[in-house]
């Protein structure tokens, strides 16, 4: 139980083991642990970032979808407006066409009437002369009465 050289031997062992641990054990273990800590921290960070990115992407997708919806609605509205316009145009065209056809028909009718009148006029003179000839049998000077008859025909 006496103090002897063992105390110095133990001191030497102490410094050797502490030195060994200091140089060959501690740094490697600590480095591995720090690296793992870093890896885990990075992984968590990346996961959080991915989560944020996903949220952004979802928001963006929603935005695009809304835009598309609005655009589609716009297109439908435009088309509907255009259709109404086209129907209106068609109606206007049709009406003007009708007007035109009507006018042409009326003009034709008027023309036919005039032609009929002309014909009638010509024939009336002859008929009148014929009638008057029959009535008067002779004696009537055709040239003298033509002017008179023309006036009668014009009054028709």
């Amino acid at each position, binding site marked *: *139980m*006496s*103090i*002897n*050289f*063992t*105390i*110095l*031997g*133990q*001191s030497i*062992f*102490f*410094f*050797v*083991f*502490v030195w*060994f*641990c*200091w140089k*060959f*054990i*501690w740094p*490697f*273990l*600590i*480095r*591995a*642990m*720090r*690296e*793992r800590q*870093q*890896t885990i921290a990075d992984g968590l960070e990346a996961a959080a970032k991915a989560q944020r990115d996903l949220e952004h992407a979802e928001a963006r997708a929603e935005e695009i979808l809304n835009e598309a919806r609005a655009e589609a609605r716009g297109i439908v509205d435009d088309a509907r407006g255009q259709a109404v316009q086209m129907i209106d145009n068609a109606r206007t065209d049709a009406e003007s066409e009708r007007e035109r056809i009507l006018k042409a028909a009326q003009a034709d009718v008027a023309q036919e009437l005039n032609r009929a009148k002309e014909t009638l006029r010509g024939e009336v003179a002859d008929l009148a002369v014929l009638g008057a000839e029959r009535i008067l049998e002779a004696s009537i000077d055709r040239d003298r009465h033509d002017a008179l008859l023309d006036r009668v025909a014009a009054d028709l």
Partner: protein
Amino acid sequence: MAEDAGGYIKHHLTNLTFGQKADGTWGIAENAEQAAAMGFWAIHVDSMFWSLVLGVLFCLVFWAAARKATSGVPRGLQNGVEMIVDFIEDTTSSIFQHTNSLIAPMALTIFVWVFFLNLMDLVPVDWIPGLAKWMGIEFMKVVPSTDPNITLGMAFSVFALIIFFGIKQKGVGGFIGELLFHPFEAPKGGNPIVRILLKVAFAPINLVLETVTLIAKPVSLGLRLFGNLYAGEMIFILIALMYTSAVFFVPGGVLHWAWAVFHVLVITLQAFIFAVLTVVYLAQAHDVSDEH
């Protein structure tokens, strides 16, 4: 029986000592008296052997883990080793705020090594000495931390580091100043001549007090570990004596088990205390106190 018991205990407490015998030849002491007569230039072969074996065991185990340490998923040995390293690192960094890469590995070495030294206490007291006797070795004290040479050897190594880092941090002047101008200080302000006179007057008493404080650190550090483990070992030896009696054989077994369970706590705690106090003392050595 009483003499047998006395002899048994004494035998268990005697180191295998190598040194110069009374007749001038070098060799192993044949009994405790001869060992004591060898004086300082003798060595406890058993303590040294077990201390070395356990220290090497610590180095090998931790080195094996460190060599294959991966920052990926740790397995088996690395897991256990990392748990201890992490524990020591936490403890050290909470006590020791300065920058010194030596402190934490030293705390780890002390904790595990001292734990291993203490752990030998849980090996039944007659196993290894019995084996040694069978091999022709008369004395075999297997728990190195029951040898004050071992505990004080470590404590004074720590003491050397305290002084080394103390001087490194504060300079020789600062270190000596700390011994001379503490705890009694000249009051601040006032006549400078009176102040210097007071300082000179306080210096001797401060030196005595501070030297005692300083020396108390390694002595208490070493003797605490030694005392706890020596007492624990002694109780194991006394319990082992009960096995020789037919009447006390069963109660002896129960006691042995109970004391071993309790001792698991003691040896871990003592290893931890030794490591933590080392860190505390070295932190104090690094603290550059305010103006004196």
